């Protein structure tokens, strides 16, 4: 890669940072006091990834997902995952057109730019798995036909981390397809007070009035820009080191997959882009390691509590990061 001189301002990245800022401000109109959560959501979008929001009920998971979808324009579908939901309810179905006597594919709610998979762990693994191909390859194969999903395509799933009864934990392969898993957490006391003082319908109203901040084409160009962000060979080596370390870890049954490495790289690139850089810093990687990696790891001593699993996995990731030297 040819050396660039820094005296030339990178027009592209600057614009990218501005676009992202516009997007985030738009979302922040409805989610107050949660810039980090918004940022993660945006990063997942720019990394052409999918987002899993995992938290206790009532902190705004759905609101965030909806706000993100609305802000980027494009089409938005919400699927409420229930235990009786079937794959065809998501993907669509071929029906016989009486007039022509031919089967015609009726697209399911998955065919949208942003799909909100609300409470994804409430449906059966069978239905959950229907998302696999769509999330990985942005396509749907049905009855011998392959249907492309129009970019940008993003699945935002929410799940309640504290609920256990009547839920089906996501299979590992499914988990691995989420680029980021994030939490929202309770708002700060100050923000909570502000929330209470406002009229009850305001948030809902604001969400309803939320206008797209960006064009779809802008989102795509942002994704393209993120894909072009440079990652140095040393940092690639660092990613590999971390992955190998997790695979070697005695606490884990399953370490980081190459897909996980790529996802980590992608969000780091998006993070660099958002910060106005055209190269990845080790800080990008380290800051995103927990949301990007922890949910992919399978603990050796699988604990029954989801929350404990999560904490344990994050601890392992932290431990790995604290042991490996950062290049440079």
């Amino acid at each position, binding site marked *: *890669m040819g*050396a*660039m*001189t*820094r*005296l*030339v*301002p*990178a027009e592209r990245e*600057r614009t990218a940072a501005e676009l992202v800022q516009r997007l985030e401000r738009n979302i922040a109109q409805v989610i107050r006091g949660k810039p980090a959560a918004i940022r993660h959501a945006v990063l997942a979008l720019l990394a052409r990834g999918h987002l899993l929001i995992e938290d206790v009920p009532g902190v705004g998971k759905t609101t965030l997902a909806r706000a993100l979808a609305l802000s980027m324009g494009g089409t938005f579908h919400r699927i409420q995952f229930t235990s009786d939901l079937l794959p065809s309810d998501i993907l669509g179905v071929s029906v016989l057109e009486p007039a022509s006597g031919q089967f015609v594919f009726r697209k399911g709610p998955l065919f949208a730019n942003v799909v909100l998979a609300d409470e994804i762990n409430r449906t059966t693994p069978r239905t959950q798995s229907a998302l696999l191909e769509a999330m990985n390859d942005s396509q749907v194969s049905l009855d011998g036909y392959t249907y492309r999903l129009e970019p940008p395509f993003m699945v935002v799933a929410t799940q309640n981390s504290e609920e256990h009864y009547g839920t089906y934990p996501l299979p590992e392969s499914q988990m691995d397809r989420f680029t980021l898993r994030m939490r929202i957490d309770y708002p700060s006391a100050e923000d909570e007070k502000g929330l209470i003082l406002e009229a009850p319908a305001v948030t809902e109203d604001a969400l309803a009035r939320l206008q797209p901040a960006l064009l779809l084409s802008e989102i795509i160009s942002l994704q393209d820009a993120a894909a072009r962000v*440079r990652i*140095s060979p*040393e*940092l690639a080596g660092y990613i590999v080191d971390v992955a190998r370390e997790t695979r070697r870890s005695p606490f884990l049954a399953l370490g980081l997959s190459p897909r996980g490495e790529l996802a980590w790289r992608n969000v780091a690139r998006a993070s660099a882009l958002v910060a106005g*850089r*055209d*190269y*990845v*810093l*080790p*800080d990008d990687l*380290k800051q995103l390691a927990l949301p990007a990696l922890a949910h992919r790891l399978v603990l050796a001593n699988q604990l029954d509590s989801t929350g404990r699993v999560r904490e344990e996995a994050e601890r392992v990731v932290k431990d790995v*990061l*604290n*042991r*490996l*030297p*950062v290049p*440079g």
Partner: protein
Amino acid sequence: MKFRLIHKLTSYLLAGTALATLASSQTASWLSVAVLAAAAILSWFVEPDTRLGRLLDRAVPLLNLATVGLFALAVLQVVRSFPEVDLSPFLDFVLFLLGYKLCQRRGNRDYLQIYILSFLVMLAAAWQATSAVFIVGFFLYVLLATWTLILFHLRREIEENYLVRHTGDASGARVTVTRVLNSRRVVGGPFFLYTGLVATLVFGGAALVFASIPRVGLGFILGGVRRQTGVAGFSDEVKLGMHGVLSLDNQTVILRAQVPRIAALRSDDARDSTIASLYWRGTVYDTYENGEWIRSRDEKTRTHLSLYHSPSNDGRTYVLSSPQAPGPPPGRTAAISGAVEQDMEVVALTHAVVFALDQPVAVEMPPPPPGAFTAVDVEARWSGELGLRVFRVSPFDRNDRRTVMPEFAGARYRAYSRASRLGTDGPEGQLLPEALSPYLRAARSLSPRVRELAVRLTAVQPSAAAKVDAVVKWLRATHRYTTDLKRDASIPDPLEDFLFHQSAGHCEYFASAAAMLLRMGGVPTRYVNGFLGGEWNGLRQSITVRDNRAHSWVEAYLGSSGWVRVDATPAVSRAAHMTRLRQVLDAVEMFWSRWVIEYSASQQLLLARQLSREFGWLQPHFSPRGTHHRASRTQVLAVAAGAVALVVVLALRKLPRRRAVRSGLRRGWRGEPPVFHVYQRALDRLAARGFARRPEETPHEYLARARKQGVASADALARLTECYAEARYGDIEVPSEVVLQLRAEAASIGRDS
């Protein structure tokens, strides 16, 4: 040291070296040099923003006026000195400008002018340098000039082109350079080492060029510009008491002589004792009056010279004969056979007189070497004294000897001498009283009691030789040697004071007294000034005569023995040995004068021949049938050595240039960007202060921790981290001026303010 201070210091040292070299060459007057030195020392403390500086600022119109005035004066002086152009007023003007500029160091332009002026000063010193001290000064100058000019250039770059952008979208801004100039890390030891090596190479190259460029002797074409340098121990006339205290410290070398007969002596003791009794005869006087010896310039006393010209090599031999001697002058062969041969070299003399061992019988002037622009000749003077003349040789007519040079230092000649001996005293009738009358003239200033004394001492003696003996014995018995003279002003003639009251004096008094007493006793005498003894330099097998060996004695005419040397002064022991150091210095001086000052085309040829003999070059190796000659081993070795030297030179030149010009913007061994090095140095420094970056920490995490811990100059670290991260992870080249600034800033990181 701070960069600014280093630059100032080297600049001052540069000017100081030029000044010191000038002082050592004695081109400028001591007053000018001293005034400038004082001004320079004062100017060190004159910074533009100090009180002194402001005071000086107010004086600028006055100083400018003085500059113009001095320039006009210098021009006037030079014009008036025409046609014997003396450029020294210009030199004084340059010295004035240098002092002025040193006091007015405002910006780069002033520094540049200081360099130019110091170069002019150096040029003036080179013009006149006759001592090997110059080479030391010159080397220092080259060394300092290399440093100074690089630092100057660097400083200008820093001051004039220092733009930096902290962020991509910010416009370039001029950076305040004070911090960089005050940084201690811009240049360091390695810079001086490597550039010093370069300077040494430059110096060696200059010497090579000097040796190999064909000599055209421009210096002598511009003859007359060189000013008289020498200071010899006596002046044209001798005034008793004037040189009351002989300067025993005056170490100025007057003459150098190579005397094969002395060099051939086996033992050092024999040589030392022989050298101690060598009388180098110079000026001769015949008339004493009122404490003064002068030359009567009586034609009767004029030295007879017979010229034997060798047409084959243009060499000239002069055979001396005194008009008083009976018989025809001896032929050349007769004159020089058995005589002591001396190869003389004049180093510093104020008076153009031929010096030779007592008594000179012939002087041989070497033919001017090819390419030489001067030739040496002698002229007959009086009483056996010979004048030395240096001509400019016209390139068109080698016999045109009309232009006499005022400069005769470096003149060489060969003298032949025969020691005078007291022989059997011949009958008085053989004397030629007419010719001897000037040597019998008694001073009118002496009172009758001197004559009474003379008569008392000499009347009873049967012969002239016995009279001489009696007078010398009496003088030595009743008077003692001293250089601490006392004078009774009531007695008009100092000689009389010496004879009857002080009873103590130095050689001039003894010689004068002997001459006068003998004259009054009827013995013709003349007064001789010269040098006694010398120092043996074993390194180059020659005798060095210094100014402090000046001596006076008397020559008495003893009939058939002719003129005989009479030294009435009591023996004063003087060290005849040079210390080892002085021998080396003296040898260096001799080498310098022979191979640098008088380096001529003929010596160049000589050198080339020597080299060719040494290495086997230039030897006619052509075989008649055109077969190739096989290279000798020395040739191969020489070529190989030359190639190796060339490679070393090139490598050395390349290395310092990169380091020096980029001022330590070092790339790592793997070609890492310079900023890596700067960052690593900062980390090392912080680690040394107990604040090390942990391996798992990213640069920015480390920076955050540093900020939290309150590390000094965390902002500088932040900028450095930013640039480092760009270079490290973004492969973005950081401009070298930015690196320079970072480097300067990095010096303060972690340092407690």
